[in-house]
């Protein structure tokens, strides 16, 4: 074989091998497009259907029997308040559990069982959480069909997400940084407080926001605990004129949330309400997307100062 033939030979082999690169790239783009296009179509459809309802009144009106007067005021306020309770409950519990499992728990059978349990919790159907919450929060604890019950239910639902995110974030901290803290004479708690938790914050927050984005769209457990579908008032405001100038009455108020409002409208026979449902759906997706965007931004901002 002349050197020239040899070279041509090599080129043929490379060209052959590279066909797989192309084939895979095409396949990959097609699979991606499938997901993206379906979502874009749905999103677009909801936007078009809901277009007549995108007015300020839609956001500032209570539900009504007349579709054109109906709005999502009680739903979006309810969703935000429920998310607030969810975050307040899930973050401390999830972070504490994650930190314990990573930093404190002895490596034994019991810990292994707990770990498997946490992973399995993430796979429990959300309606089961609803049933549990109905029995425990609504009746046993007497919280009633309230924002508090709903928030705690969804907190249970996203707890595994927060725990797993916390653990992943902690595991990403290199051993030599942890050793550096201990070598300074820090106790375990000082190491956790000054290093482990702050450095895993980007990952934890990302997990929390992703979890909340999932929770905000949950319908089944909220219906199970008995959220109402027609709420023509807002929860009491937490600020009052007399001492102590604030109250927690809103926690026990009846409520509705975005997906329930949407579900209610889709089940109406009048075609007019379908526009309301589409508009509410569009807003709900927008809320989820902006939470995901926030997660990406938070991660980017906090990670900037940490390099390893």
């Amino acid at each position, binding site marked *: 074989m002349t050197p020239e033939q040899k070279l041509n030979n090599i080129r043929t082999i490379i060209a052959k091998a590279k066909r797989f690169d192309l084939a895979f790239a095409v396949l990959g783009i097609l699979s991606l497009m499938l997901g993206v296009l379906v979502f874009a179509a749905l999103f677009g459809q909801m936007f078009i259907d809901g277009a007549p309802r995108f007015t300020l009144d839609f956001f500032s009106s209570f539900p009504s029997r007349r579709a054109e007067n109906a709005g999502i005021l009680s739903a979006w306020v309810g969703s935000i308040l429920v998310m607030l309770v969810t975050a307040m409950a899930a973050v401390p519990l999830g972070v504490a559990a994650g930190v314990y499992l990573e930093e404190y728990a*002895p*490596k034994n059978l019991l810990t292994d069982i707990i770990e498997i349990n946490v992973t399995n919790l993430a796979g429990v159907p959300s309606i089961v959480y609803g049933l549990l919450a109905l029995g425990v929060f609504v009746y046993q604890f007497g919280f009633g069909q309230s924002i508090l019950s709903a928030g705690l239910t969804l907190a249970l639902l996203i707890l595994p997400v927060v725990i797993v995110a916390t653990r992943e974030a902690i595991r990403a901290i*290199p051993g*030599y*940084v*942890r*050793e*550096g*803290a*201990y*070598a*300074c*004479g*820090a*106790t375990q708690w*000082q190491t956790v407080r*000054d*290093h482990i938790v702050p*450095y895993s914050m980007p990952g934890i927050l990302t997990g929390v926001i992703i979890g909340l984005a999932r929770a905000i769209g949950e319908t089944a457990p909220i219906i199970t605990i008995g959220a109402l579908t027609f709420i023509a008032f807002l929860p009491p405001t937490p600020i009052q004129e007399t001492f102590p100038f604030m109250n927690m009455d809103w926690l026990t108020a009846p409520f509705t949330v975005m997906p329930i409002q949407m579900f209610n409208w889709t089940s109406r026979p009048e075609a007019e309400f379908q526009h309301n449902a589409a508009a509410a759906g569009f807003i709900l997706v927008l809320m989820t997307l902006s939470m995901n965007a926030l997660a990406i931004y938070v991660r980017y901002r906090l990670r900037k*100062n*940490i*390099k390893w």
Partner: protein
Amino acid sequence: MVTPMENETLTIKAEAKDLNFYYGNFQALKGLNMPVYDKKVTALIGPSGCGKSTFLRCFNRMHDLYPGTRYEGGINFQPDNTNLLSDKVDPIEVRMRISMVFQKPNPFPKSIFENVAYGLRVRGENRRAVLDQKVEEALRSAALWGEVKDRLNDLAFNLSGGQQQRLCIARALATDPELMLFDEPTSALDPIATASIEELVSELKEKVTILIVTHNMQQAARISDHTAYMYLGELIEFGVTDQIFIKPQQKATEDYITGRFG
């Protein structure tokens, strides 16, 4: 075996006595007996995997962080003759007296100031004036003050590798340790940064006792007063550095030093 240098009395700062160490069932250190002299630099040399880092990390009980490790025997720490490895001695107490500089610079993702102040904060020191003064002293001793005095609030990661390692030395110095452990502190650094760290180690021995692991024999020869050669978890030879390098007693040491082995 050890011949003290002329007109100089040596005091023992720490002494390993029949020290055995196990990772699970694997015995990594076998019956080590060795002194570390006060205000001197002692170097541990030997091929990779010989147990020199393992030995070093016994001094600040770093192994306690990992399950399945076990010490036997002791390291007696002077002047109070405390056995550092005793179950009754809290590893936190040990680490408060003995500080460490690691192989890879490991500053915290905090400001330069907070990195140096961390050891003090752990000890409950939060008075700004005291922190300011101690941080400055430590940074001066670590030959870093001039380079960072105008940007103490900058992130430590913005420093170069050599500066980061000197920052870690400042962090280890800020709490007035009795003994400083260096675990191959220059292995991740370029030759210029290495030279500055070596110079620093030689200066520091005025104030503090130093035990340093190095895989670089020239480095051991340049900066240490005493050298220990370890092989497969055993101490083969310990002596005054010049003696170890010029006329080692053991054939194994000679083979390693002359490059016939390792």
